[in-house]
């Protein structure tokens, strides 16, 4: 195991930046620490790097307990959000900085590594320039180069693409992904960008207020959220959340919120719902089906919730269309393929339905019930 973090806790004064952090990263993996700003994800990364001393817990890198070690003894590489190249040194000196500090490396070996890395990162023509003469993307590549030449046990990246523009971000993201697959070194990647997390992460750790909300594969995080926060943080547009009172009608359950009523067959999980008189139902926009009301094609099967709503906004995104419709002041977001949006216009009455099997049930505190 490349990185093991156990019971990590860090405080700034009396403020708990993160606590109860446990995870493992294998050599072949990218682990993404995801969360809104201030959630403690960067703190966790800095604790792994040794830039912060945790109040509690332990960090192991390649089977060594590094908790008490200085950053430079941990054999890790860190890529900073602000790139943090040394402005007074050429790119070559920047890349070789760590190697120059390492004892017992021959000049030939250092040269060989610089050549290798600058080749992979397309920096060969820029080695003798100063960082300020390079574009943002090139600078970030140079920062990566400074990390790669060290041949570290693990890479730690703190929102490395935050200062790049959108296109470059996507390009660099793919580069990093390929790079990690080639190097086969553990990578911990901090970001607040859910798309970046979904694309890069073999595992995602979603954090909020210093606590891990859910750890899992992107698929698990997306399709099986542990609580309302995870369900709403991931996915654009946001997950639909319907909070209402819960009633039982024999075999069926009835969730009511104003004029909106959802009757569903809860045969399989009725027991889990018992004891809750209010409930939050979450459903992803792409799992909401929309039908123009004149074409009554939707099935009213036992496991399907159906209601009428009025479309008030269409957002065509090319490959898909976001439809905002409302029942009174309750808004429903749905995403459909363009061909399914044909014939639907703003102001039109539509029938909304969704498969209850694909819906999530949360308590009013936000914890997943079913």
């Amino acid at each position, binding site marked *: 195991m490349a990185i093991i973090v156990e019971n990590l806790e860090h405080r700034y004064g009396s403020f708990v930046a993160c606590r109860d952090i446990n995870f493992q990263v294998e050599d072949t993996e990218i682990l993404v620490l995801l969360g809104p700003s201030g959630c403690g994800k960067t703190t966790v990364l800095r604790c792994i790097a040794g*830039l912060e001393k945790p109040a509690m817990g332990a960090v192991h890198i390649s089977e060594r307990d590094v908790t008490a070690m200085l*950053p430079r003894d941990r054999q890790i590489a860190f890529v900073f959000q602000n790139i943090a190249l040394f402005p007074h040194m050429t790119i070559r000196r920047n890349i070789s900085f760590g190697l120059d500090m390492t004892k017992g490396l021959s000049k030939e070996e250092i040269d060989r590594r610089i050549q290798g890395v600058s080749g992979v990162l397309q920096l060969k023509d820029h080695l003798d320039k100063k960082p300020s003469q390079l574009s943002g993307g090139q600078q970030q590549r140079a920062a990566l180069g400074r990390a790669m030449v060290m041949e570290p046990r693990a890479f730690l990246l703190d929102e490395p693409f935050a200062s790049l523009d959108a296109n470059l971000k996507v390009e660099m993201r793919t580069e990093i992904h390929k790079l990690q697959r080639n190097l086969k070194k553990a990578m911990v990647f901090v970001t607040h960008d859910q798309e970046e997390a979904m694309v890069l992460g073999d595992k995602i750790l979603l954090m909020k207020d210093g606590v891990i909300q859910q750890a899992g594969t992107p698929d698990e995080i997306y399709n099986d959220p542990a609580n309302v926060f995870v369900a709403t943080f991931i996915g654009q547009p946001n997950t639909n959340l319907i909070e209402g009172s819960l009633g039982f009608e024999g075999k069926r359950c009835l969730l009511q919120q104003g004029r909106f009523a959802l009757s569903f067959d809860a045969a399989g999980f009725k027991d889990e719902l018992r004891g809750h008189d209010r409930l939050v139902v979450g459903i992803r926009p792409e799992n909401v089906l929309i039908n123009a009301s004149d074409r009554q094609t939707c099935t009213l099967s036992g496991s399907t919730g159906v209601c009428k709503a009025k479309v008030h906004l269409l957002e065509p995104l090319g490959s898909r269309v976001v439809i905002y419709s409302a029942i009174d002041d309750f808004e429903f977001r749905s995403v459909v393929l363009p061909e399914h949006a044909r014939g639907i216009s703003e102001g039109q009455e539509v029938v909304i339905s969704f498969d209850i099997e694909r819906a999530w049930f949360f308590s009013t505190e936000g914890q997943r019930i079913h």
Partner: protein
Amino acid sequence: MHYSWRLKLLIYIVLVLTVLTVLIPLVYVGVTSLKSSSDIFRGSSWIPRPLSLRSWMEALTSLNIHRNMLNSFLSGFGAMLLSLIILVPGAYVFARKSFPGKEFLFYMVTGTLLFPVILLVVPITEMMVQVKLFNTYAGLWLAFQTLIIPFGMWTLRGYFAGLPMDLEEAAMVYGCTEFQAFYKVILPISLPAIIAVSFISFLVGWNDFEFSNMLVTTESIKPATVALYTYTISGEQISWGPLMAMTILIGLPPMILYMLAQRFIQKGFGER
């Protein structure tokens, strides 16, 4: 930027006035140094008649001005070195480290900027006599720190605090100890600010009169400013000609230094 011609005119008028305020006295000093003494007392004409180099001859020969200027240099340079030893680590610690009472201490140090220096001259002289540093370079160097440190601490701390923390952290991840990170990365980057502060420190020593006048009586370490005063003014009659010539002489080295260091000084005090 494009200005309307009215605004441009206004800007130029202000600029010309500013430059003249500085230049007119300077030119008059130069003119006076080239007058004969009877011409000086005759009145304030702008053209020396006859042109006389006597004042310059006197300034360069009859007084030991070379020795005094060397003394000035040594007291300025020593004050500068001592101030750097105190300021660079001190300002870095104030900028980067946290310790109890940090803000209070910092404002204690920089707050002395507001204290009238002239009030310190007598007690400091008294102190120097007691610690046997009266009439020594070391005494001067120490005394000058009261003028240099508050200002230098303020400037350098500001500069250090403005540097991104990532730089040291990157250095520490890639093999440096905290101290190595400081001298391999922070120090070279901060060179413009350090040079700017050094220049001012040197000037404080070079230009000083109050401390030097009180702390030094021996001719062998007497700086030029004091020598100038004793030679030209403290006698029965002010010898204006040599006074002007020596003023120019003493003013030249800082000016040359400034031109050499201008690039850094602007960087150090201005934008990075």
